[in-house]
């Protein structure tokens, strides 16, 4: 029998729905490669509106359970699970080539409410005030990285007045304000940059770019969501994996 959404449950509807879908995938009720019901069908099956259905699907796409194909539908993905290999991942800031001069241009340091799915990505209520930071990184005066960060205002209101041209957000949050970042989740993909990103990064119309989405956590609380679009020709990643002591 199908699981049902419990409206008395304090858990958000989309979280409940996410768990139900995840279980169907893990129990192989929905096989790898199969198409899952449409958003409309899921709304009918579970008696919920489109917003929680979309949020649940989006989260499962992010976690690698589902894959969306434009105009075709949403499909169950083949997942590679590295169970038994518990890894401690230490993330290093994206590294520029050594010896080159770099600078930062602050394009915005203001406050906004979440739009699109930013509330879902940050796991905050829809009416949360967010500090919004947009910066353009330049190497030898050439734009290479466009970075947007969203931080719930109540987590670190002082960031609104900080010098973020010369300081890293990561360091300000950790060292100056003592909020220890305990986990970062990274999602890397190739993206088609939006028109303003093409313009700011000086990309040619048809070129792709690298998209890095990062979710920063302090304990169980997500404290920042960062979206970075990079010129693929000027960056390389350094991701160091260390096996955690048993």
């Amino acid at each position: 029998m199908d699981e049902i959404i419990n409206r008395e449950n304090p858990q958000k509807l989309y979280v409940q729905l996410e768990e139900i879908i995840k279980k169907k995938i893990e129990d192989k009720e929905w096989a790898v490669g199969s198409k899952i019901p449409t958003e409309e069908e899921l709304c009918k099956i579970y008696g919920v509106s489109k917003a929680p259905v979309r949020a649940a699907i989006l989260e499962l796409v992010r976690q690698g359970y589902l894959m969306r194909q434009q105009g075709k539908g949403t499909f169950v993905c083949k997942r590679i699970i590295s169970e038994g290999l518990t890894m401690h991942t230490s993330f290093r800031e994206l590294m520029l080539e050594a010896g080159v001069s770099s600078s930062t241009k602050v394009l915005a340091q203001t406050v906004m409410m979440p739009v699109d799915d930013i509330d879902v990505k940050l796991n905050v209520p829809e009416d949360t005030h967010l500090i919004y930071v947009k910066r353009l990184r330049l190497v030898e005066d050439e734009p290479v990285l466009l970075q947007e960060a969203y931080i719930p205002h109540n987590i670190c209101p002082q960031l609104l007045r900080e010098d973020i041209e010369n300081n890293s957000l990561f360091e300000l949050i950790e060292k100056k304000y003592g909020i220890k970042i305990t986990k970062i989740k990274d999602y890397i993909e190739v993206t088609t940059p939006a028109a303003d990103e093409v313009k700011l990064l000086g990309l040619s119309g048809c070129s792709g770019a690298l998209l890095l989405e990062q979710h920063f956590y302090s304990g169980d609380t997500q404290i920042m969501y960062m979206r970075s679009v990079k010129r693929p020709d000027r960056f390389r990643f350094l991701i160091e994996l260390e096996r955690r002591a048993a």
Partner: protein
Amino acid sequence: MSKGKVAKDVMIDVFEFPHIPYWFSIRQAIGIAKKSLLSSEKCHHPMAVLVFDEKYNLLGTLSLKDILRGLEPKFLKPTTKAQVPAEDESGLSLLWDTLFDKGAKEAAEKPVSEVMVPAKFFVQPDEPITKAAYLMVHNDLALLPVLENKKKFVGLVRIREVFDELSSSILEG
């Protein structure tokens, strides 16, 4: 009458209101107004969104009425035909049908900076609320920003607190 009362005595926190940057579209502002004002359990008065620049300077306010005005180009340039003459109801029904039609969806893509009410008037925290009352009445404002040193945005004065303070002395009389 309300002797000694100044703007900072009655101002409210800016975070009582949703914030958006000026480059947001009217469509995005509608989404935020629905989520933060209409669906909220908190009672917002007046129902308005604050519009900021990229350095967190207040640029203006956007009420639900301003959004409607922005969606319908005919509201931006009111014609005499839009003024409801009672004797011409048959013709009017045709006119009403043309409002908030296809053009409204296109208009929703405009930036909010085109339809907000610019923040031209303000008071400083230590200025009397009578000055706030004067500015709000003369300029038909529901909200008046409070700026420290004419620069730092520290709060908002609403007509309800100004009314409450100034009218009390009448009743006490």
